């Protein structure tokens, strides 16, 4: 039961966040960067459902992101140049991929789950690499168009930003609903104590599989939006480094908070963009930052906001 004062506070926080996100592209170095941050924020948020809420360390989420991006891109380039059906196809195919990978890997736990997900993601990567006719192989899938939706001219970067923002806000709302639902609470109980939850009579594997598919769905959406944003799909979107990146964003932001990963994506992408304009050694600096995060503040950016400012978001 949420009391009304609490929900009022939440509404204020949320609405200020929404306001900020509306102004955001004018505050970043360039518009496309703001859109990229949004895309990865969505990707990290969807990953947090699996990692933060269900406690499953997947190292293969690039698969769903990349499959969403490739499916959307291929629909737009080769099938029918219309944005909504392409995005829809992207999320459907990536959800199916999540069903497939999840079904086979969900029974493994710990490091073995991690490795099985990695193995599947690498298989998708090499398939895309080899299947040049469909995916463009190493050159990436080039020339993804951004057809207009009615009066919405998506070729404008700023319009595209708000288009992406719409989906991201929608997804976050749904994500919050999911984690606060009985389903979400059960997941967290599972994470904390698997055996006990099992003994109460919950079907652990079913819960894990469902959250895995939901996560795959949103990762695929993020991927599809990424294809639109870049006007092409880089092969690296399927590579394990992309999986690693989203793990890092989630941890740095603060896992199990949904908003944390959003801030993680913001921090990392913005910082990398700015640092790489100043120095060639940005990898070194990012590495130090990650190490500092672990030694300094382990709850991620969210915990700083919580502890240092005594806030509860």
């Amino acid at each position: 039961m949420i009391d009304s004062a609490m929900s009022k506070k939440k509404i204020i926080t949320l609405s200020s966040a929404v306001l900020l996100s509306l102004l955001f592209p004018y505050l970043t170095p360039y518009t496309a960067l703001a859109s990229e941050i949004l895309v990865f924020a969505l990707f990290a948020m969807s990953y947090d459902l699996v990692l933060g809420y269900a406690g499953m360390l997947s190292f293969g989420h690039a698969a769903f992101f990349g499959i969403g991006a490739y499916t959307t891109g291929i629909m737009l380039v080769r099938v029918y140049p219309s944005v909504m059906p392409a995005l829809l196809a992207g999320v459907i195919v990536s959800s199916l991929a999540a069903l497939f990978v999840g079904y086979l890997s969900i029974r493994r736990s710990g490091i073995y789950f991690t490795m099985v997900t990695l193995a599947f993601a690498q298989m998708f990567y090499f398939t895309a690499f080899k299947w040049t006719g469909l995916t463009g192989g190493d050159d990436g899938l080039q020339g993804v168009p951004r057809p207009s939706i009615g009066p919405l001219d998506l070729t404008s970067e700023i319009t595209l930003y708000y288009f992406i923002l719409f989906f991201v806000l929608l997804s976050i709302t749904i994500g919050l609903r999911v984690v606060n639902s009985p389903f979400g609470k059960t997941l967290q109980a599972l994470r904390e104590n698997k055996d006990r939850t099992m003994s109460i009579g919950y079907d652990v594997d079913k819960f894990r599989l469902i959250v895995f598919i939901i996560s795959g769905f949103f990762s695929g959406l993020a991927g599809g939006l990424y294809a639109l944003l870049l006007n092409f799909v880089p092969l690296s979107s399927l590579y394990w480094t992309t999986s690693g990146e989203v793990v890092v964003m989630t941890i740095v932001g603060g896992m199990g908070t949904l908003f944390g990963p959003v801030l993680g994506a913001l921090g990392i992408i913005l910082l990398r963009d700015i640092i790489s304009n100043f120095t060639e050694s940005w990898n070194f600096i990012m590495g130090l930052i990650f190490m500092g995060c672990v030694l300094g503040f382990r709850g991620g950016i969210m915990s700083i906001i919580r502890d240092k400012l005594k806030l509860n978001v």
Partner: protein
Amino acid sequence: MKKYNKIFGVLVVFLMVSGISALIVSPAVAADPVKVAVLTDMSGPYAGITAKNVDAARMAIEDFGGKLLGQNIEFVYRDHQCKPDVANQKAKELYEKEKVDVIIDCPNSAAGLAVSNQARIHKKLFFPIGSGTTRLNGSDCHRYTFHWGYNDYMLATAAGLWAADNLGKRWYTITADYAWGHSLLKNFKNALKSRGGTLLGNDMVALGTSDFSPYILKAMNANPDVLVLLNAGKDGVNSTKQANEFGLKKKVKIIHALFFIEGIKAVGPDVFADDYGAAPWYWKSQNPGAQKFVAQWQKKFNKPPNWMNAATYSAVTQYLEAVKRAGIKDAKPVIEKLEGHTFRDIFANPGYIRPDNHMKVADANIIRAKRKEEIKEPWDFFEFVGSVSAKDAYEPVGKTGCNMGGF
């Protein structure tokens, strides 16, 4: 309630800081001066070869006089980290936010294609140098992209024709199994066929393979005159190191797709000694102004420039010359001045910009890597052994697959 104002405040401050820092990085500019950008790899795997393209572009602007159309020429650069997605984003930033008129360079084929697409969308110029894919002047060509350094067709055809004439007609090939390797193989085969040679065998090798010994062994069993290694970077070094290990070079000549002086410096002259390859340029070039450029570079960096540095210098210079001839920096008139233009500079003597596919063509050089004992001067790793005319080295008109289209 106050708490929430506080968090809001913190977020606003955070974003403001990032916004301001962005302003520092990219000061707003007045509308008119010509603005040149270099987008290259400064921290990724090619950084050792391409990072100094930034200095080459600066030098070209300085040597040009620094002024054009009555205003100072402006210059920015960005690091794309050799990642196509980053390249694409940075290209947008450069065209939209920085309002640059032209982007130079961009190694990595996927990155080159992505930036070329952005050039078409933004109707601004792009001069790819480091990315060699023939798609840039074939199926993906358009009015705004001018392919400046080289392309894969040239590398394969020039080296192939020369090798078939001078080294032998029985070949074995080892090919990196992806688009780049396949495209090189096709062109090498055609070159060999046109000279009546035979291909004894080919192996497709997965990218990133660390062990080439099985292929080396197969190649040795086939007993060819020439072994063609169609791979680059790490794979190129590994395969050559292992060919040496098995003693293959005692009987067989090796041809490589692409050579860099930095590559020889890095692995030592022993690895590539006596191997051949095509090169767009080498620092012992006698083109007009080349030796002056090399001397200037040597003084500044204590090493000679590589061919990408020279190509960057040339691209910037020819772009500025074209703007000068057009008298205006708008894309369309500048492009019209570039198309079909013939010029002589440090990089090409003469160079010709083909109007049919926007490829800058010039005679290709064939070079041989010197043995350790032949190297008398630091960095003098190669000798010129021949050249192939621009007409033979590049795709014939009408065979490029390019449909140039309008503006």
